């Protein structure tokens, strides 16, 4: 794959002469000047500066996907299965995430258009609306679970639900009111780095590294074998790593940041580093809750932040508080990235200004969608008696089920020579992407069989 031959879209746009320059353009131009200056200089320091300037969307999307329900899924995995099969399995899911997210970064850098916009203009509104409905429902449900996580995490410290939701909304407002993509990205990256607090919590449990090494090599043990419970955890862990909002978010963020064909190499690095950091945090969470293995804790213990409370006798009040704070951070960061993902998609489809470089006066629709989604999701969490557990369970499963259609759109766009020019996916990337689609579809079907005909499933698994 080269970076030289422009796509047909580029040559069409280049013929236009009447251009309205906006402040969004000016802000992005300032960012690009810094990138060009760093690229022009030689030496290790300049290369590091270039890397620093270009990383962001990949790390954010991966750490953003280590959200509230994801961390709870990993915690439930550790508590239910201990150290074993799921440690290498979670790493495998992050490898799948790299394959998928690399395509969105490449699409964004090559076309300078968001994912929703490309689907609409390339395949028409019929398929575009299907895609948007999937995204809208998935994003909204996920957003609800982020507020559930924030409520649960802050609940550990005695914060009442209304105050937890209110503080999350205030945080969201402060995060996006910087009117500058660069500032927003750096601030959120700093906060998202707190996701690695789960590594510290894992170390507090004094893990058996021999068991971890053995699990990584052998993919064993898998207590209880293949059962419906195992499948739900499998789906939840996949849904904790690859979800539709990630596709839309990273492509739009790549466009908003202003990455170009020249930046694809470092965009890949950004995506891989993000996946590595997120995988470390995910595995650490499994290891951290592995001592609870004998207590048979599941996702049903989510509502009252019992994971942190259950860990307290093992790792002390400080360690448990760190765990609860990690859950809060995961929910906070994801509530921002998922809201922005919805607002980007809305702006792209409705042809309204959509950028974090926009002041509120120029991006009223963008910011309105963002806040409306978040405020509604936050309000739902406060409804008394709402079965929050089912919502959490539902969301990760729905995310996995919605992935194959979203991935096929991505696959077709990444192989569309009219759009991508010579940056179409190479054969190896297509083989890997096809493998991911088949794997996710089969996992979903297996789940369906386990629900509809549990006896047949028991027979298939040899019980």
């Amino acid at each position: 794959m080269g970076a030289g031959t422009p796509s047909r879209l580029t040559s069409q746009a280049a013929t236009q002469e009447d251009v309205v320059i906006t402040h969004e353009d000016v802000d992005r131009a300032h960012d690009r000047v810094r990138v060009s200056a760093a690229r022009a200089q030689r030496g290790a320091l300049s290369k590091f500066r270039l890397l620093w300037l270009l990383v962001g969307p990949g790390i954010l999307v991966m750490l953003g996907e280590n959200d509230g329900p994801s961390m709870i899924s990993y915690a439930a995995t550790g508590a239910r299965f201990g150290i074993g099969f799921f440690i290498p399995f979670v790493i495998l899911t992050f490898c799948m995430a790299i394959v998928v997210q690399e395509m969105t970064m490449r699409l964004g850098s090559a076309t300078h258009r968001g994912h929703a916009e490309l689907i609409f203009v390339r395949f028409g509104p019929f398929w575009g609306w299907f895609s948007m409905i999937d995204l809208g429902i998935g994003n909204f449900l996920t957003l609800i679970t982020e507020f559930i996580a924030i409520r649960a995490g802050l609940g550990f410290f005695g914060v009442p639900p209304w105050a937890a939701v209110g503080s999350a909304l205030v945080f969201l407002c402060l995060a996006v009111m910087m009117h500058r993509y660069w500032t927003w990205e750096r601030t959120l990256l700093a906060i998202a780095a707190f996701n690695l607090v789960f590594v510290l919590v894992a170390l507090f449990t004094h893990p058996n590294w021999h068991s971890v090494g053995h699990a990584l090599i052998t993919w064993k043990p898998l207590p209880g074998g293949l059962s419906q419970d195992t499948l739900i955890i499998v789906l939840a862990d996949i849904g904790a790593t690859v979800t539709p909002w990630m596709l839309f978010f990273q492509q739009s963020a790549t466009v908003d940041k202003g990455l170009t064909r020249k930046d694809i190499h470092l965009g890949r690095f950004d995506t891989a580093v993000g996946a590595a950091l997120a995988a470390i945090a995910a595995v650490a969470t499994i290891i951290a809750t592995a001592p609870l293995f004998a207590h048979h804790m599941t996702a049903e213990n989510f509502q009252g932040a019992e994971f942190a409370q259950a860990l307290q006798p093992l790792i002390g009040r400080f360690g448990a508080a760190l765990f609860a704070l990690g859950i809060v951070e995961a929910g906070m960061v994801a509530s921002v990235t998922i809201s922005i993902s919805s607002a980007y998609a809305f702006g792209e489809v409705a042809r309204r200004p959509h950028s974090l470089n926009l002041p509120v006066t120029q991006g009223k629709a963008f910011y309105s969608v963002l806040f409306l989604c978040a405020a509604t999701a936050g309000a739902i969490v406060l409804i008394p008696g709402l079965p929050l557990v089912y919502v959490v369970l539902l969301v990760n499963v729905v995310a996995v089920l919605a992935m194959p259609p979203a991935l096929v759109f991505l696959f077709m766009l990444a192989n569309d020579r009219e759009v991508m020019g010579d940056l179409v996916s190479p054969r190896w990337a297509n083989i890997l992407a096809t493998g991911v689609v088949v794997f996710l579809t089969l996992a979903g079907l297996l789940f369906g069989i386990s629900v509809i005909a549990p006896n047949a499933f028991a027979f298939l698994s040899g019980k």
Partner: protein
Amino acid sequence: MPSKDKGHSAITSADQELVLSSLEPEQLTGLKKHFIPRRHMKGLEKFVMWSLRIYLLFMMTVVGYQVWIAAH
């Protein structure tokens, strides 16, 4: 020729030069509304997309059933 952002008067000619020299044409907000040719799906592509759509609807029903069972 480039014109000013009508909603904001603070964009100077230096800004315009900076934008035009450092951004690719397609990165300009004003050029993003230009036409992108529609691609019509072929037979196999339509088959795959409809199959996945049916798969999704079916699986959502399964999830709904699972939630109903769990709730009862």
